[in-house]
């Protein structure tokens, strides 16, 4: 069902973890639907993404797309990171089964959400970046996502 690349990124996910005092953190997805991705970015003073880590609750494709997304944005400028679309993530993984395409969309949204958080924290506006869809709410228990 999955390509070799997807299986590789699922079995050996790159950049799993957290970044302390991250420049930006974004969490997207919905536990009800079975996918949550959290992306941590460490951005230097030149606006280059020095490091990127993730944590994901989800299926094999969700883990693999998160892993690939971190690989694709690492070392990139913010503007370059914005060009990492779900399509780019999917292509880099040699494709996804049709029912799993939403996982790649989630990966793109996770990057955007982390960049949005960075922009908010620094009071800046990033050209081409709009407020991410906040579909992570799970009702009254929701706290600080």
């Amino acid at each position, binding site marked *: 069902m999955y390509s070799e690349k997807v*299986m590789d990124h*699922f*079995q050996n*996910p790159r950049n*799993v973890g*957290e970044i302390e005092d991250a420049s930006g953190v974004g*969490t997207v997805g919905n*536990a*009800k*639907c*079975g*996918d*949550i*991705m*959290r992306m941590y970015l460490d951005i230097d003073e030149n606006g280059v993404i020095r490091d990127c880590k*993730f*944590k*994901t*609750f*989800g*299926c*094999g*494709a*969700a*883990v693999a797309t998160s892993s690939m997304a971190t690989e694709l944005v690492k070392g990139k400028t913010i503007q370059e990171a914005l060009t990492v679309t779900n399509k780019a993530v999917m292509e880099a993984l040699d494709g996804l089964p049709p*029912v799993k395409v939403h996982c790649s969309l989630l990966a793109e949204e996770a990057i955007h959400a982390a960049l949005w958080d960075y922009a908010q924290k620094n009071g800046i506006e990033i050209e081409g970046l709009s407020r991410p869809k906040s579909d992570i709410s*799970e009702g009254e*228990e929701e*706290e*600080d996502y």
Partner: protein
Amino acid sequence: MIYLDNAATTKTAPEVVEAMLPYFTENYGNASSIYGIGAESKKAITEAREKAAKVIGARPDDIYFTAGGSESDNWALKATFEAFSGKGNHIITTKIEHHAILHTCEYLEKYRGARITYLDVDENGLVDLEQLKAAITPETILISVMFANNEIGTIQPIKEIGTIAEEHGVLFHTDAVQAFGQVPIDVDEMNIDMLSMSAHKINGPKGIGFLYIRKGVKIRSFIHGGAQERKRRAGTENVPGIVGLGAAAERAAATMNERAEKEIRIRDHMIKRLTEEIPQCRLNGDPVKRLPNNVNVSLEFIEGESLLIMLDMKGICASSGSACTSGSLDPSHVLLAIGLPHEIAHGSLRLTISGETSQEDADTAVDAVKEIVTQLRGMSPLYEDFAAGKRRSLIDG
């Protein structure tokens, strides 16, 4: 490989295969033919029918071979609806039936004007007999409640349901695909009018099953054509399949008590280890009114498909009720019906053992689950929040 998905299908037993083989290349005659090898086939079918009937205390003439559980379920529901349309259009079933029942009911509702009541189940998956009684109306023509659930293993109070059906003059069908050969069944004692069975769940071949139809229940043929199966199910008999079903039924009945005892011991050992050794893990389904071979747990903060892939990498075959394995965005309807929140339903794991599963296999599987759960929780943002005190466990409350 450790195969723990016996509710999905089972290994065809070598003696079953052996019993079937002559009917491919030697006694390949059509059972309707007059010559020797045709008569051989006919005799083999008769014997298989007797073996199958004996397991459920039925008359052999009331066993009608079909292509399996789904066909049997479709036949029972659609033909009953058609035959009794003069009496009423109401069918009572449950929210946790197999899709062969649920989707057939939805079809009858949408295209044929049926009214369907889907009974709730409690947190262990049991139907409420009072709710059943209250649901019966003068228009009710059929009650269809599965004998035992394929996902969570819960065994329904079938005898009580049969009594209620009889008292109200309503026909009673049960999908016994998971229960046949696993737990004792007696169609007379339990007042069962129709019963669906599939051979591949009891170490028989795939593509063969039967529908038991009590004598006097006048429902029409579902497949029209030749005069096979006393004119109620056309099509040249799948003789090797039928022979395999008979052999598997006989084998299952002969080994049932001993096998159940062993399976229950291993089942309960696995449940104990999983729920005691893994934090935020709960058992799904009734702890006692449960199929001997079924273990089903929910593991919080992780998702089922990831778990299955990682188990597969360790050579362990299992299944899950997560959305990702159902091909939709919703997790299993059974897990939702017993009241599990979506988050917990996504992290479900079903391990269904067989008579061949050893204690060692069981321990290897539990150890693997423990290791994988730790690994997956290590990359789960939900677990990160839980560990940081920002999220409550839905299992621990």
